[in-house]
């Protein structure tokens, strides 16, 4: 059963030419986590806010559990949608304690029932000892967990999370990711999770939806998105790909650094670009090689090199050598990938 369906959503803000959300459609199954990812201004937060009922769409339809909550003629206000939301700044009510914050969404229940639910939620997020504290006396991670508990407590149909980790330090962010994902899964929550961080999206999402300029570029599992990017934008945004120019031949694609053995359904001599990542490129020292080492970045376990081909094209390549190659050395680069690469016709 689909929990959330979004059809042809369009939203334009006053005084702007471009649509913030332009014809976006997707659907979400119960218990699934969907990560909406894209650079800032791509429309992911606006989409989330439309689902929450905090914005009105210009056109398009939103279904929650097969009920229309937003369309051209219907607009259910946020308080009647039964969604839970975790805000970027957590938005904990500073005048209420941790327990009171969590209990805020529990209405029409007996005091006993509320107490029980709050206790369960506090236990779930591991904050039982802090029940009586006020938000200003909590650390960033604790606030994050209270915000999550508050959103989950009323057992919402759908949980919406808007960059929930962006206000945390890098270390804590990693820790919270795991923690939060475990909690969401244990609750079998259906979640739409917004982030601009591709790592986070790959980690959190059962599926990913990549947005750019208000449009949905691709939706799919993390693996599909990473390895089978539909568009050049997705390849670039999700995987730091370089784009190597080449031409289609009957035996594969001829590039400046050799032939890629991959048959494509294109006419011969069509110019194409191959999305190629640093782990798909290898090189060896060679005085008469096809490229030059421009820069080396030490990355701990490995070294990342920036190479300039004779045509001026820049490629990146990893080496795990303990040996360090000097900047300025001439090398011979080649394609080392053992899996199909994504190819775009230019």
């Amino acid at each position, binding site marked *: 059963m689909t929990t959330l369906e979004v059809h042809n959503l369009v*939203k334009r*803000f*006053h005084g702007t030419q471009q649509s913030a959300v332009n014809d976006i459609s997707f659907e979400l199954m119960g218990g699934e986590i969907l990560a909406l990812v894209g650079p800032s201004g791509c429309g992911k*937060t*606006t989409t989330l*806010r439309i689902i*929450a*009922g*905090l*914005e*009105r769409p210009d056109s398009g339809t939103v279904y929650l559990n097969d009920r229309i909550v937003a369309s051209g003629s219907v607009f259910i*206000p*946020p*308080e*009647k*949608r039964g*969604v*839970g*939301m975790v*805000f*970027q*700044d957590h*938005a904990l*009510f*500073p*005048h209420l304690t941790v327990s009171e914050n969590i209990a*805020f*969404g529990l*209405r029409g229940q007996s005091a006993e029932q509320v107490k029980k639910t709050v206790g369960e939620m506090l236990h779930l997020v591991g904050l039982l000892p802090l029940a009586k504290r006020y938000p200003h006396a909590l650390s960033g991670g604790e606030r994050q967990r209270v915000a999550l508990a*508050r*959103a989950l407590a*009323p057992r919402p149909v759908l949980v*919406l999370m808007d960059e929930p980790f962006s206000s945390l330090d890098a270390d804590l962010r990693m820790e919270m990711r795991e923690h939060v994902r475990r909690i969401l899964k244990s609750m079998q929550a259906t979640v739409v999770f917004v982030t601009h961080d591709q790592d986070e999206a790959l980690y959190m999402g059962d599926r990913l939806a990549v947005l750019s300029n208000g449009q949905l570029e691709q939706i799919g599992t993390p693996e599909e998105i990473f390895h089978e990017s539909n568009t050049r934008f997705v390849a670039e945004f999700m995987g730091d790909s370089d784009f190597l120019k080449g031409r289609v031949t009957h035996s594969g694609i001829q590039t400046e650094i050799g032939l890629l053995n991959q048959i494509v359904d294109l006419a011969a001599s069509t110019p194409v670009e191959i999305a190629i990542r640093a782990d798909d490129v290898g090189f060896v020292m060679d005085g008469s090689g096809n490229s030059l080492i421009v820069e080396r970045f030490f990355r701990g376990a490995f070294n990342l090199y920036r190479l300039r081909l004779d045509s001026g094209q820049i490629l990146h390549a990893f080496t795990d050598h303990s040996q360090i190659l000097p900047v300025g050395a001439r090398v011979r680069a080649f394609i080392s990938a053992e899996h199909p690469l994504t190819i775009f016709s230019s």
Partner: protein
Amino acid sequence: MRSNPISPRLAIAAGLVALFVAVPLVYIFIRALGAEPEAWQRLFQARIWKLLGNTLILLIAVTSGALLTGVSMAWFTERTDLPGRKIFRWMLAMPLAIPAYIGGIVHLALLRPRGGYIPQALESIFGQPVFTPSPLGFFGAAFILTLFTYPYVYLLSAAAFRSLHASLEEAARTFGRSPLQTLFQVTLPALRPGLAAGALLVALDILAEYGTVALLRYETFSSAIFVQLSGRYDRSAASVLSGILVVLAILILWGELRLQGQARFTQMESNWRPAPPLALGKWRLPAFFLVLGVVSASLLVPVVVLAVWSIQTFLDPQTMAAVFRTGSQGFGSYVWNSLWSSGLAALTAVLLSLPVALNSVRYPNRFSRFISRFCQVGYAIPGVVIALSLVLLVNRLLPFLYATPFVVVIAYVLRHMPQAVRASESALNQLSPSMEEASRTLGRTSLQTFVQVTLPLILPGLLAGGSLVFLTSLKELPATLLLRPAGFDTLAVRVWMWAADGFYTQAAPAALFLVLASALPLYFLLRREQIFK
């Protein structure tokens, strides 16, 4: 990022508030333009140019005086090792509780040429008259008004000195500037937008000032309008003068509103670090006496003199009986009248400011911003002008309200609404909209959200706005004098009734009480200021 640029209910409510604010203003212009040409002619022949000159010279003198005093005092308490600077901070801000006309009464009684306490004491010591500076006329008025308006600038600049990042000055030092050069080339320019806004507020205060200039016999637009209102049968001359005064004030307010947007210096960054205080060295003692002098003239002397006079009044049964009664009303009724009318005005102003502030902060667009700015026009309508338009308007349109204390309250609300609007807006600005959105997603309607989340969170800010309105309403003199119904005397009116007739001691108990009643909300307000934390 708001999708619904208008909330119709809120926009209508805010529009109604703006309309309420607009009526007296529009009415004054109609009356001024409708005045017969003779009135204009008579005024332009003799009076207007002199009044304009008088008013502008006083305005410039007091504004510069307040800037100079306020900024230098702030520099002493925030940037140097001045002895006693902690207590001086309070004493430099507290004169805000003393209306300038009360300060004027004290200084006039002390310094009046030949008749004042000090000249008389000197004469009896030296056996002949000794020259003392006169508190009367231009110099006196400029001196007194500076003494009681500099705290505005002091508070703004002290907060600014305090919040300015130390690295800014340190950077200047590494580029080879001496501490003094740093002050003038870096620190003060960095504070400029905020200080200029503060100075313009002082200027608006001076335009509206009636009591002090009337007492010290310096004629400005406001006092001339008052004389016209109480001296003539026809109101056209007063309307003409009012129209010109309001145009002048609106120009200043416009400048102030423009600067307001830029005055963002008080925001502290997380890595803020105070600059180390400058060692005054051998200048410590002279600096101490300079600050002590300012504090004495603006706070200690007035309060002590009022206290002594009050005691004298209490000791003399006859004056006491006279002071504590007018008609059938007693001192208790003046206190009560002052408190409830100012309190009601504060409550009303804050309530009315809410839709305006909500509309402009949560639904920012040209219309809502315009409404918000328009509702601040009260700053530019002096008490006499509000009184003039209300007398005529209320009697014709709302005769049942006429000659009730509520007209006085309406005048306070109109005049002091800007303070409430600003306080409410700043409180709302500090509240993240996601707080309200979280409440909505947790099942609360917009009204429930307002009551359960927004209101409790902005309440301290609203209280501050209310305190400010209360404080300034308590002091308001010309509008109260002109609009009060018979038997409705406030403390301010009592002070004036006695003092205007030259009975200074008799004015003291009411004045002292007024100062004490103002000190309380002021204390609450100052506690919120950064420099007192």
